[in-house]
């Protein structure tokens, strides 16, 4: 079994276990304000790190290339309150344009 299968199955098993566990624990555990704060902050941290790594790295090297144009356009689209599909498509189109013509 290669890494892709391990990741696919491992992620799926844990994802369901987390959801199911949640349905089986008493609600008062969640009422702690620090638990709620951490729950809101973890996705922010991980997603921000993923944006950075996917935009500026190749394996373990830092680099600036056509992807920066794509993500830059996505950022502008988000500032202009564009819906999610517009954000993703405008990023892809501008990145492809830079990659194909330069």
């Amino acid at each position, binding site marked *: 079994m290669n890494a892709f299968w391990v990741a696919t199955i491992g992620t799926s098993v844990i994802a*369901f276990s987390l959801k199911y566990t949640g349905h089986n624990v008493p609600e008062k555990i969640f009422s702690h304000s620090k638990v709620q704060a951490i729950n809101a902050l973890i996705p922010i*941290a991980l997603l*921000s790190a993923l944006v950075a790594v996917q935009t500026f790295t190749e394996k373990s090297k830092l680099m600036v290339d056509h992807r920066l144009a794509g993500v830059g356009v996505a950022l502008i689209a988000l500032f202009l309150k564009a819906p999610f599909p517009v954000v993703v498509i405008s990023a892809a189109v501008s990145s492809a344009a830079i990659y194909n013509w330069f």
Partner: protein
Amino acid sequence: MSRIESTTFRDSLSVSFTVGAYGTAFGAAAVANGFSVLQACLLSLLTFSGASQFAVIGVLGAGGSALSAIATASLLGVRNGLYGVIMAPRLKVKGFKRIIAAQVTIDESTAVALGQEVRGEKAMRQGFWLTGFGVFFFWNLFTVAGALGAQAMGDIRAWGLDSAVPAAFLGLVWPRLVTNRDRTLAVGCVVFALAMTPIVPAGLPIIATAFIAIAVGLRS
């Protein structure tokens, strides 16, 4: 259908279709990052949580190990568990129905359910189930379309798909940046992840930022 039910129905269906359509981006990005069409579809069927799915393909695509891909996706999946804690007392289901409820416990089904709170518990349950099943249906349908489409494309960079993934992450984190603390954390994690990239194995810089989030949360 009563007036209450039609409002809930409309909320659920519009969320289901628009969110489900992002499945195209996931399917395409999964194939672009080296996953097969079957693996892309299994992730949407079984993991069924957008941010976690994008994280798995993102970490492996960036050269990270299966373990760091699973760890990152699972840390993102913790919030679904907490949604389960909130939804369980309102759904009041047991056995097989609870298993199904757990699988469709995601950002959108919980958000629509909580949005119906003023209309009563029955509307909340309807919103949860309609949105859960609706997103599940469209998300999986569009994943297949995106995966097959990307397979036919060839060089994914020529189509901009390598930028679609970070753009999707940016779109996912954007609505979460409400307070100055959120924005400071986001910028800090960007700088931290990039600074660590040349030093530690791929994938670890991403997971490590979860500990920054925990530290910030404990200090609040």
